[in-house]
């Protein structure tokens, strides 16, 4: 087992921080779930599947949002924190490979978030018990959360390696995260708008089609997550509908396999970011 991961888990388990965080967040989630459930069931004696699904959607988004909020701080502090505590030099002197340091740091940072996700599964299972969803949907949800967590986490790790202070690294990670989620949307929308401004000046108006530029949204974890959740509750055309505003993608291969392709894109990006991080962490790298 990766020695860094092992050590960090040991440290994590020992501090009460993690336990408190999990308890608090799960309590909020559970309270949320139970409250909605009661208010749903209370009115009528029959349980409405669609209401159940709404609850599922809500809880899934809450978990996703929590992840977006927590991961940048935790990962940004990992390597930079080691530098601040002045333990990084000693760590680099050992035979642990830079790649293993980076991976160890990533997964130890994610472990608390993942633990959080896993521990809140029973609450999501509430929805499952009342029907509406298949077991595979839960695994898909976990897989998506995991891959997006790794993606967001790698950004934090890279900044943590590059920047001296963990606070700066955290700020940079949040800005990048916002850039991914809002920025990519604004970029695509803005590009469409420019094309539209050109189109209205022409004598005959033709709705503009931004074509391949829409694939920029593949790096947007929120849009992909939106697609997944909609897909699970029966709306498999959600992303297509969303993108239709920017062109005609009805028979488009990538559009029809958006979820899996976005996951692969996120995964590849993570790999690239971590690879860069592992090179930057090595003090004797050739500049």
């Amino acid at each position, binding site marked *: 087992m990766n*020695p860094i991961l*092992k*050590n960090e888990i*040991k*440290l994590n388990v*020992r*501090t009460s921080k993690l336990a408190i965080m999990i308890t608090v967040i799960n309590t909020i989630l559970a309270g949320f779930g139970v409250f909605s459930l009661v208010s749903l069931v209370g009115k009528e004696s029959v349980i409405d599947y669609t209401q159940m699904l709404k609850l599922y959607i809500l809880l899934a988004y809450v978990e996703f949002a929590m992840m977006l909020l927590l991961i940048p701080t935790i990962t940004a502090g990992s390597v930079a924190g080691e530098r601040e*505590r*002045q*333990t*990084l*030099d*000693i*760590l*680099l*002197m*050992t*035979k*642990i490979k830079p790649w293993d340091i980076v991976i160890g740091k990533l997964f130890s940072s994610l472990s608390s978030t993942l633990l959080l996700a896993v521990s809140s599964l029973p609450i999501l299972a509430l929805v499952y018990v009342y029907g509406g969803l298949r077991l595979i949907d839960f695994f898909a949800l976990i897989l998506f959360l995991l891959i997006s967590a790794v993606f967001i986490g790698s950004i934090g790790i890279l900044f943590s390696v590059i920047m001296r202070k963990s606070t700066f690294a955290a700020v940079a990670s949040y800005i990048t995260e916002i850039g991914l989620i809002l920025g990519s949307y604004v970029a695509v929308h803005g590009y469409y708008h420019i094309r539209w401004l050109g189109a209205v000046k022409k004598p005959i108006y033709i709705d503009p089609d931004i074509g391949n530029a829409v694939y920029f949204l593949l790096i947007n974890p929120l849009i992909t997550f939106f697609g997944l959740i909609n897909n699970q509750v029966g709306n498999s055309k959600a992303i297509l509908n969303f993108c239709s505003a920017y062109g005609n993608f009805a028979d488009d291969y990538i559009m029809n396999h958006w979820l899996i392709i976005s996951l692969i894109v996120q995964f590849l990006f993570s790999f690239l970011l971590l690879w860069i991080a592992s090179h930057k962490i090595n*003090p*004797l*790298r050739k*500049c």
Partner: protein
Amino acid sequence: MLLIHDLYKKYGKFHALNGLDLQVAEGEIFGLVGPNGAGKTTSMKIMAGLLKADKGEVSIDGLNVLTNYNKLKEWVGYMPDFFGVYDNLKVMEYLEFYASGYGITGKRNRDICLEMLDLVKLSGQTDNYVDQLSRGMKQKLCLARCMIHNPKLLILDEPASGLDPNSRFEFKQIIKQLKERDKTIIISSHILTELAEFCTSIGIMETGRMVLQGDMEEILASIENSNPLMIKIYKNLDTAVQVLKQELMVKTLSIQGNTIMVSFTGSREEEALLLKKLVMNDVLVTNFSKESSNLETLFLTITNNEGVNW
């Protein structure tokens, strides 16, 4: 063992190392001395492969540090001038973690950690938390940590700073024990006299350069030679001054009361002959001695009395 040639390092516009040269032979305990900001830590970090020099070469056992990074990690144990400590980790766990970082696992890991704790006399502390140890204990723990993979070269950056006399003594004992294990050790310090006790050779650094390097005994002897002769006269001071002025080997001469300070370049024998001459000229001498060898004065003269901070 260790060879540094023409090493340069700049931080921004500031030149921390200006063509540093340094050689340390196998089995030696080398004391690296210099005032604050001389570049001791910088050069040690470069030796340990934690910092990249702008120019120059560092090789250990003939292998260039830059291209043999992995061998270097095996061979070198580095103790920084601070103790990196994780909260919530116990002494034993701390060592076990670093041992596992060197690929040492299972029972061997535990055995080695216990052995190291025994060496630095921390066996009683295995279950205490690292951040609750005293400064001296932490420093000893760090020493144990940097030896965990049995390196042949130890680079210790001010290992004894901030220790009380007792701990210093203990520390020296540990270093002596390490010498018996055939380690080559490089120790930096501000305090020259402290190194004199166990170092076999020293190098004095200033503003990124080596100003004096050599065998401990030779350096001590050369200091002895350069020190002035102190002659206390009971009677016939004037005669004494006349006699001394005629001597070719007397370079300068100063008189304070009945004491004459003479810078004398001759050998021991010529010193004795000078005394004989004084006595034969009816000068009554109560004291005739070279000022005892003083590393600190040497250090101060070499480093221009600047920036020395105990």
